[in-house]
């Protein structure tokens, strides 16, 4: 039986799709059959970040409406075995996520996969609620910045009240904090909320920190999940996050400012 993981944040632009792509790829790399679903109907982007935008034929909404079969819409990743992308519609809007349709599709996916990653749209409207409804686990993507932290707190409250687990009075959704775009140097200068600050404010266990890194943009430019870039600090940090999600102990890297040698300062890149 699959575990459903929602990647959500409330606020937009904090790294939900980047995280969904990286976590899904990381789980598949470790041999788990994984599908990543784009719930951002009308603003499809997961396909670009995963690099499969030219292979989209049918989408989530087609399957919900019964116009296509699940197997016709799932895109098998060309790099990683056991990794599938489930794109959404670019032309419809979020209302197309009909409750019974989503329920049926999630039921079918649960029978076929180990992990189902739901890439949530921003906001707390229908699209975001549909994405989190089926979740067993939630990854809250947060930037160390006041509006993002506040929105994260809001979405944590919604998970506790409106998820399927909450409705059925089952065990609550497991919530994990992922702090992205973290800059240890700015934290040291007192210009950015620290890991401890955000953990204390939200009182949610930390899954990992992703350092602010130029490699994230380079990865999305080329449609490669950043976790596949061996030179990327953000990629390594996602690798750690995947390991922790699977129960391994990993030391927290990238939490302190990097000491750069003279030559690297002159010629290096992040």
């Amino acid at each position, binding site marked *: 039986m699959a575990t459903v993981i929602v990647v959500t944040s409330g606020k937009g632009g904090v790294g939900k799709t980047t995280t969904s792509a990286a976590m899904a790829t990381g789980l598949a790399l470790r041999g788990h059959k994984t599908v990543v679903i784009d719930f951002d109907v009308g603003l499809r982007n997961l396909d670009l970040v995963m690099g499969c935008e030219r292979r989209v034929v049918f989408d989530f909404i087609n399957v919900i409406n019964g116009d296509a079969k699940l197997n016709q819409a799932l895109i098998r990743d060309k790099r990683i075995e056991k990794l599938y992308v489930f794109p959404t519609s670019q032309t419809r809007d979020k209302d197309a996520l009909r409750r019974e349709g989503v329920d049926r599709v999630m039921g079918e996916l649960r029978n076929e996969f180990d992990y189902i990653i739901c890439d949530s749209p921003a906001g707390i409207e229908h699209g975001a609620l549909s994405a989190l409804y089926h979740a067993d686990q939630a990854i809250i993507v947060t930037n160390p*910045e*006041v509006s993002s*932290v*506040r929105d994260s*707190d*809001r979405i944590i*409250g919604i998970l506790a009240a409106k998820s399927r687990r909450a409705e059925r009075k089952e065990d609550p959704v497991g919530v994990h904090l992922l702090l992205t775009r973290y800059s240890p140097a700015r*934290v040291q*200068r*007192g*210009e*950015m*909320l*620290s890991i401890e*600050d955000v953990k*204390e*404010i939200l009182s949610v266990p930390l899954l990992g920190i992703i350092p602010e890194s130029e490699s994230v943009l380079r990865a999305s430019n080329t449609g490669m999940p950043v976790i596949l870039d061996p030179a990327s600090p953000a990629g390594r940090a996602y690798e750690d996050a995947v390991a922790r999600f699977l129960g391994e102990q990993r030391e927290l890297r990238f939490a302190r400012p990097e000491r750069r040698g003279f030559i690297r300062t002159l010629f290096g890149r992040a």
Partner: protein
Amino acid sequence: MRLFEFLLPRRPTSATVAKERLQLVLAHERASRTGPDFLPALQRDLLAIVRKYVQADEDAIEVRLDRTGNASVLEINVELPIGAAARAAV
């Protein structure tokens, strides 16, 4: 020069300010998330009962719900004009 910086009074960093602001606003929002709906009605009914016995102004009653850990404290403050309590006692 940072040599004598320790002699100057420490100004809070912007991150410290951010943390304090967030803690304040979230404490307020979390409290109002869990059951703000009945508070206005409760306040109205309580005022009606109080006014049955004593003279009290519309805004003389304050109802607050504070969450501390796993318990909630319902705090009701009624401000009575001087003499009102004495009259009621008669």
